[in-house]
Each structure stands twice: as structure tokens, then as C-alpha cells.
């Protein structure tokens, strides 16, 4: 099994970027600069991470591993909060939700013996969990923003009837949590049929028996379902009160007569 991509092969593969740029140019999409920036960023970031991980795996120090995980969690939280459209406390809420979802899921995986407490296993798995949690939380924020705007009167009617802010928001909360989890549920449903997911593909690539590889993929499916559900629930329940003021009124009420 050839697991070494030569620099020459990588350069030739880079020609694929030209295909994307040519399409962008032909269709006047105006994304040429964006593609170049994305490619440069991806190459630099991956090289830096590659060398960093090599060092961290070699040193095998608990403190350093924790620092790496914290950096992953912070970056994931930072990206998730960008989807919140300026909601107050979005960064700490995202951090708590991603920390809890990663912590619980990782804890179960380690305690069950599915993975070992070594940097080469804990760090990549943390990254997978945090990144899926990040996407789920971002979707939750976007859904809540849209729904609190579109269902404004319905929320106000529940408040006017004497409902608590939870009574008024519960429908939106449930819909938003479902929205956050939807991509993970969809990919669980189509795993193996539409695509061979990342973990499984990687192991098969590395020469592992596909039957053994699917066991890891099943574990990944379980952990991502857990992570996105925990992340979505915590983020939605911590965030929805931000749509109300201290007098339990919906913020930014439009003034119509």
C-alpha cells in the first residue's frame, strides 16, 4: 500500500484547483481570489498542523495534549459563534456546548476502551467531535435567528397569554435542535451507501480490513450523534433567553399600529 504522496503527485493534483478556477472564470462567479486564498490557507494550515501533531505525538505529554484539545475547542467555538448574528454571549455559550459535547463523548469512548488516552487517538477524535458539534451549533443559531424573526407574532401571542419565555420558545427550540442534528442523522442514514465516511476511508486506505474499518465508522456515527445532540441542546437552551429582555419581552419589537 502506497501511503506516501510524492511532492510531484501533489503538484499534479494541484492542477485540480485550476479546474475550479477555470469554472469560476468561465461562469463569472468572481470567486477566483477566494479559491486562491482558500488553497493557500489550507496548505499552510495543514502543514503547520502536520508538523505540530508530529511533535505532540512524539512528546506524548498530557498537558500538551490538553492544550491542543483546548485550542481545537476554542477555534470550533469561535467559528460557531460567527453564525449567531451578533447574539450576546455566543462565544461562551458555544464553548460550553462544544466542551460538554466533546467531553462527554470522548469520556465514554475512553472509558469503554474504544480509543486509548494517547495523543494520536484523542486529538483527531476531539477534532472530529468538535467540528461536527460546531456545524450543528452554527445551524442551531441560524435556525433560531430565522424562526424568532419569522414567528415573532406567534411568540408574542404565547407571552401575551401568560406563557413563560420557555413556553413561548419551546417550538422554536425543538425545531432548531432538529435542524442542528439533521446533517449528522442524514449522513448516518447514507453512510456506506452514498459515501464511505472519512474514518472508514482512511483505515481502508491504510490497508485495514474493511470489516474492521466499519467498526470504527460505527463508533464514529454513534459519537457524532451524541456530540451533535448534546451540543445542539446545550447551545439552544443557553441561547434562547438572549432573544428576550429582563421584562420577558421579545427584543427589537417592531412598532406597528
Amino acid at each position, binding site marked *: 500500500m502506497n501511503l506516501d504522496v510524492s511532492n510531484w503527485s501533489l503538484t499534479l493534483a494541484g492542477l485540480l484547483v485550476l479546474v475550479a478556477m477555470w469554472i469560476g472564470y468561465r461562469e463569472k462567479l468572481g470567486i477566483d481570489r477566494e479559491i486562491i486564498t482558500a488553497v493557500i490557507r489550507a496548505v499552510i494550515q495543514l502543514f503547520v498542523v502536520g508538523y505540530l501533531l508530529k511533535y505532540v505525538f512524539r512528546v506524548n505529554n498530557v498537558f500538551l495534549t490538553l492544550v491542543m484539545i483546548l485550542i481545537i475547542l476554542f477555534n470550533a467555538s469561535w467559528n460557531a459563534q460567527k453564525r449567531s448574528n451578533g447574539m450576546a454571549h455566543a462565544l461562551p455559550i458555544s464553548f460550553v456546548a462544544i466542551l460538554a459535547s466533546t467531553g462527554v463523548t470522548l469520556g465514554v469512548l475512553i472509558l469503554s476502551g474504544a480509543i486509548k488516552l494517547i495523543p494520536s487517538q484523542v486529538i483527531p477524535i476531539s477534532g472530529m467531535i468538535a467540528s461536527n458539534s460546531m456545524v450543528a451549533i452554527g445551524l442551531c443559531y441560524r435556525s433560531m435567528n430565522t424562526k424568532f424573526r419569522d414567528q415573532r407574532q406567534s411568540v*408574542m401571542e404565547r407571552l401575551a397569554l401568560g406563557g413563560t419565555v420557555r413556553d413561548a420558545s419551546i417550538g422554536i427550540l425543538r425545531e432548531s435542535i432538529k435542524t442542528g442534528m439533521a446533517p449528522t442523522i442524514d449522513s448516518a442514514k447514507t453512510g456506506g451507501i452514498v459515501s464511505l465516511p472519512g474514518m472508514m476511508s482512511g483505515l481502508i486506505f491504510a490497508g485495514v480490513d474493511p470489516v474492521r474499518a466499519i467498526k470504527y465508522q460505527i463508533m464514529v456515527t454513534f459519537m457524532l450523534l451524541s456530540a451533535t445532540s448534546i451540543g445542539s441542546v446545550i447551545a439552544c437552551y443557553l441561547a434562547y433567553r438572549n432573544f428576550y429582555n429582563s421584562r420577558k419581552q421579545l427584543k427589537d*419589537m417592531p412598532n406597528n*399600529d
Partner: protein
Amino acid sequence: MTAILELQNVGYRAQENQILQGISLSVGAEDYLTITGPSGGGKSTLLRVLASLLTATEGKILFKGQDISEKDPIEYRRQVSYCFQQPTLFGRTVADNLDFPFQIRNADIDVAKQKSALEYVGLPESYLSKKITELSGGEKQRVAMIRNIMFSPDVLLLDEVTAGLDEANKDIVHNLIEHFHKDHHVTILAVTHDATEIAQASHIITIVKGKLEVTK
């Protein structure tokens, strides 16, 4: 008669717009007050401020002598209930809407009470399981109103609740308002242009450009 609601120099400003200004008014218990005036004058905003869905930016409002800003807004809204002009119904069926007042009070759902309320507004018992998408505009408004009065409030704030309804539906809604006013001693504040509601009222006020212009 003692004032159930007292407005002291109430104003409301949203960003740069002064929507209400210097409104002072005393509403007696069991009064029936109609609020008229040109559209865009701030009538709905006044009701929303009274419903504690908005907070007055100037002055204060007393409910039974107590400043409403010191009261729990949820408890207050159960006593001073606001009905929307074009209400949205919740969930899937009429029952989902009539269950809501019980659910928020952690009370057992009283189906008999729901059925008799439906009957009172001319809707058969079988309507409890009717889908909200199958209701006419008038039926929606009637269901929405009984949602507000399933637990009789002290004050009912009506925001043009009969606007857009046909005569038959208007009569049913007027009778319901009259019943709650006369028999349950509910204080009524109604924004309206409707002649019948104005005739039913004991007091009429007019709001023009956010200011109280006329009181009768």
C-alpha cells in the same frame, strides 16, 4: 370607582421615534373603554405597553395601585390579557390552542370547559379536533379569543379584534366581549373603529400622533 389601571405620563420611544407621549389615564374596574384614532397614531403600541409586551420608556403604569415594572410580567399578563388583531393559532388542532392556557398554568385540561367555551362562540364540540388550517378567519378569531379568556382575566385588551370579520362573526365576538364584561366583570380596553363596540363602551378616548386627544 377604584382605578384598575392608571397611566401616569406614559411615553414610548423606539430609537428616534416618539410613538407615545404624555398619556395619563385612569381606567376604573369594570370599565369598557374604547380607543379610537387615525392609524399609525400609536393605539396598538399603547395596548402592547399595557400588556407588558413593551416597556414604557417614560412615566409609569399602575395595576391595582402597583407599578407594573415591579410585577412579574408573566403573572401580570395572565391578569391583563392582550388579543391580537390577526391572531396566529398554535400547533395543529383547535385543542392545541385551548390546551395552552392550562399547560402554562400546570393545570389539568378541562375538556368540558373547552367545549362549553366553543359552544358559547357558536362552534360545535367536534371543533376541538379540527385542524386549524380548516378554520375560516372568523372562526380563528373566535378560537383565539376563547384562548385568552379560558381563565378569566381582570382586563382584556382588544386590538381591533373584529376588523376584517363579517357581520355574523362580529356579532358573536361582540356578544362574547359583552358577556365577559357584564357577567365576569372583566375590564375592557378595545382599540376599534367598529360602531357597535364604540356604542357598547362606557368611555371613549382618541389617540392622535401618540397623544391623548379626546376623552369622553
